[in-house]
C-alpha cells in the first residue's frame, strides 16, 4: 500500500524523578495516501502524544527515545530543526481541539493564516491575502474579506475552527492531523466541520489523522482506525471490520459505551476503573485489570501484535473468546 506516513516502534518517554515513564511504548501506525485514519482511546492514552511526535513538538521533559517516523521517505526524527519547520505547516499541518485558545488573541485572523502561506510558499503579501480570502471562502467563512481583519474573539467557535482548518489547508498539506477538532463545538457545527474536512481532503488528496474519543466521528469519516490504550496500539482495523469484528475487549468496551437510539438500555455500559498510571504500568497486558475476560496469562505476560486478517491487528490473548461475546452486541450503524 502507498503509505504517506509510517511510524515504527515509536517510544516517547518522560523523565520523572530520574525514572523514564513511557507515554508511547512502541507504536506502529501507517497512514495511506488520501485516506482518513482515526486514532481513538480514552484521554491520557497517548493519542495527542502521537500527534505531537509527528509534528516534532513534544514538550520537555518528554523526548523520543526510539523508533522512526517515516514521512515520504524522510525520517522525521533525524531531520534538522529548520527542515522540520519547513515540513510543519507545509506538508504536515495540524488542527487543535480548542479553537478558542489556539488563535493568537491580539493578531488578526487573516494575518495568522497568511503567515503560514508566506512562510511556505514565499509569495508576496497581496497574493497571500488573496489566497487567504479564497481559502476562507472555501472553508465556508461568510464575508471572507471582512473576516480577514477580525480578531479571534470576534468570531464564534465554529468560525474559529474554520479559520484553523483554513490555516491548516492553505498550503495543501499531504497530511493533516486533527486533534479532536470538534470536541469543543456544538453537535450541529460538528457535522458541518467534519463534512468540510472530508470534502477538502478528497479534493486535495490530503491524508487525515483524526484523533478523537468519539466513536461516532470514527464511524462517519474514517477509513481505518487505530485504538490506543496506555501508550500502545491495541487494535487496528478498517472501520467496518473494527465495528463488525471487534477483537479487543477494550474496543468492545468503547463500542458498548455508545448510547444507541431506539434501544432500551437500563444503564449505559462503562469500562470499570481508569487508565493506568504510566509510572506504574502493570507487568502483563495493560488492560488486564479493567478487562472483564482477563485470565492469569493476561497479568503475567504482554500480548503480542497478532494479525487476524491482512489489515486487522489485535494485541490480546483472548480475542477468540471475544468473538462469542460479540454476537451478543449488535452495534448499529451510528448516525
Amino acid at each position, binding site marked *: 500500500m502507498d503509505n504517506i506516513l509510517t511510524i515504527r516502534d515509536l517510544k516517547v518517554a518522560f523523565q520523572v524523578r530520574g525514572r523514564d515513564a513511557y507515554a508511547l511504548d512502541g507504536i506502529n501506525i501507517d497512514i495511506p495516501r488520501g485516506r482518513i485514519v482515526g486514532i481513538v482511546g480514552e484521554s491520557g492514552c497517548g493519542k495527542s502524544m502521537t500527534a505531537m511526535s509527528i509534528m516534532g*513538538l513534544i514538550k520537555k521533559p518528554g523526548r523520543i527515545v526510539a523508533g522512526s517516523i517515516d514521512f515520504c521517505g524522510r525520517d522525521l526524527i533525524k531531520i534538522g530543526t529548520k527542515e522540520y*519547520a519547513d515540513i510543519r505547516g507545509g506538508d504536515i499541518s495540524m488542527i*487543535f481541539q480548542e479553537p478558542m*485558545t489556539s488563535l493568537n*488573541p491580539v493578531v488578526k485572523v487573516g494575518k495568522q493564516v497568511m503567515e503560514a502561506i508566506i*512562510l511556505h510558499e514565499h509569495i508576496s503579501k497581496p497574493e497571500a491575502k488573496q489566497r487567504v480570502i479564497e481559502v476562507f471562502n472555501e472553508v465556508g467563512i461568510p464575508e471572507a474579506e471582512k473576516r480577514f481583519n477580525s480578531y479571534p474573539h470576534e468570531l464564534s467557535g465554529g468560525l474559529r475552527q474554520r479559520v484553523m482548518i483554513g*490555516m491548516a489547508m492553505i498550503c495543501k498539506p499531504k497530511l493533516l492531523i486533527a486533534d479532536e477538532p470538534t470536541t469543543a463545538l456544538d453537535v450541529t457545527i460538528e457535522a458541518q466541520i467534519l463534512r468540510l474536512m472530508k470534502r477538502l481532503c478528497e479534493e486535495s488528496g490530503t491524508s487525515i489523522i483524526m484523533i478523537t474519543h468519539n466513536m461516532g466521528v470514527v464511524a462517519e469519516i474514517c477509513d481505518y482506525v487505530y485504538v490506543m490504550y496506555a501508550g500502545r496500539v491495541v487494535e487496528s482495523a478498517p472501520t467496518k471490520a473494527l465495528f463488525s469484528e471487534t477483537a479487543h475487549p477494550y474496543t468492545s468496551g468503547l463500542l458498548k459505551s455508545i448510547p444507541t437510539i431506539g434501544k432500551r438500555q437500563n444503564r449505559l455500559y462503562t469500562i470499570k476503573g481508569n487508565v493506568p498510571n504510566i509510572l506504574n504500568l502493570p507487568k502483563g497486558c495493560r488492560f488486564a485489570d479493567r478487562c472483564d475476560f482477563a485470565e492469569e496469562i493476561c497479568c503475567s505476560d504482554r500480548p503480542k501484535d497478532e494479525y487476524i486478517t491482512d489489515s486487522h491487528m489485535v494485541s490480546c490473548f483472548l480475542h477468540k473468546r471475544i468473538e462469542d461475546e460479540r454476537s451478543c452486541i449488535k452495534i448499529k450503524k451510528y448516525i
Partner: protein
Amino acid sequence: MAKNILKRILISIPVLTGVVLIIFIMLRVVPGDPVTTMLGEHVNQMVIDKISKEMGLDKPLYIQFFTYISHAIRGDFGTSYRMNRNVTGIILDAFPNTVRLAVCAAIVSWIVGIATGIFAAVNKNNILDRLFMGGALLGVSMPVFMIALVLQYLFAYKLKIFPVSGYETVTSMVLPSIVLGWNSAGSIARMIRSNILEVMQEDYIRTARAKGLLEFAVMRSHALKNAMLPVVTMMALQISSMLSGAVITENIFGIPGIGRLAVNAIETRDMPLLQGTVIFTTILVILGNLTADSLYSILDPRIRKEI
C-alpha cells in the same frame, strides 16, 4: 473608546479632589501655628494675627479649603513661606529637571529591563537566565540611595568618569539616570520574563509552531506582543515609583527638581510648597494611570472593541 477615556477622566476628578483634601487636612493638623513657624518664635502676637488674616488662616478650615481649591484650579498653589515666591512658579522651574531625569531613567530602565527580560526568557532556566534574573532581583532589592552611593564611589570618585553631582551636562545625567532607572529595570525584566514564559505555554504558540515558524519567529511575532501588553501598563504605572525614587536621587546628586523641593519644604517647614509639590506629583501620577489605561485599551483588541 473615547467615551471610556472620558469616563476615566471623570473618575479621576473626585480622586484628585480627595488627594487635595487629604493633603490639606494632613498639613493643617500639624502642631504649631504656621505663621509662628514661618516667622520664628519671637514675633509680636499682633503681627502674627495680621499675617494670619492676610493669608486667610483665621477663617474656618472648609473655607480655606475651597479658597485653596478655587485658586489651585487657576494654577495658583499659594505662596511659599520661605522663598516668598509663587509655589507654581517654583514648581515649574524645578519640573523640567525632574522630567529630564525621569525620562532618561525611563529609557535606561526600558532598554535594560526589556532586553534582560527577553534574554532571560529565551535562556530559560540555564545559568545565564539565573545570572540575569539574580541581577534583576538585586536591582529590585537595592535601596535607591545605596545604588547612588556605590555608583558615585566607583565612577565619580575612583574612576572619575562622571561628575559626583550636578545636572547641567550630559555626563552628569548618566549616573542619576542609571540610579533612578535601576529599580524599575529590575521589575520590568522580571515581569517580561515571567510574561513571556507564561505566554509560551499558550495554545496559540503551539499553533504558531505547528505552522512552521521557527522559535525566533514565534517569539517575535506571537509571544512578544502578548507579553508586552501588561508591561506597557506597568511602565506608565512606574511614574509613581519613579517620582518616589527621584526624591532620593535628586537629593543625592544635587539636582534641583521636584523631589529636592519636597525635601527642602519639609526641612524648612514650608507648608504651601510641600502641599504644592505633593499635589503636583500626584496629578502626574494620575495622568500616568490614565495614559496606562488608554494605552492598554488601544493596544489590546479584546478591550478595544468593548469600549
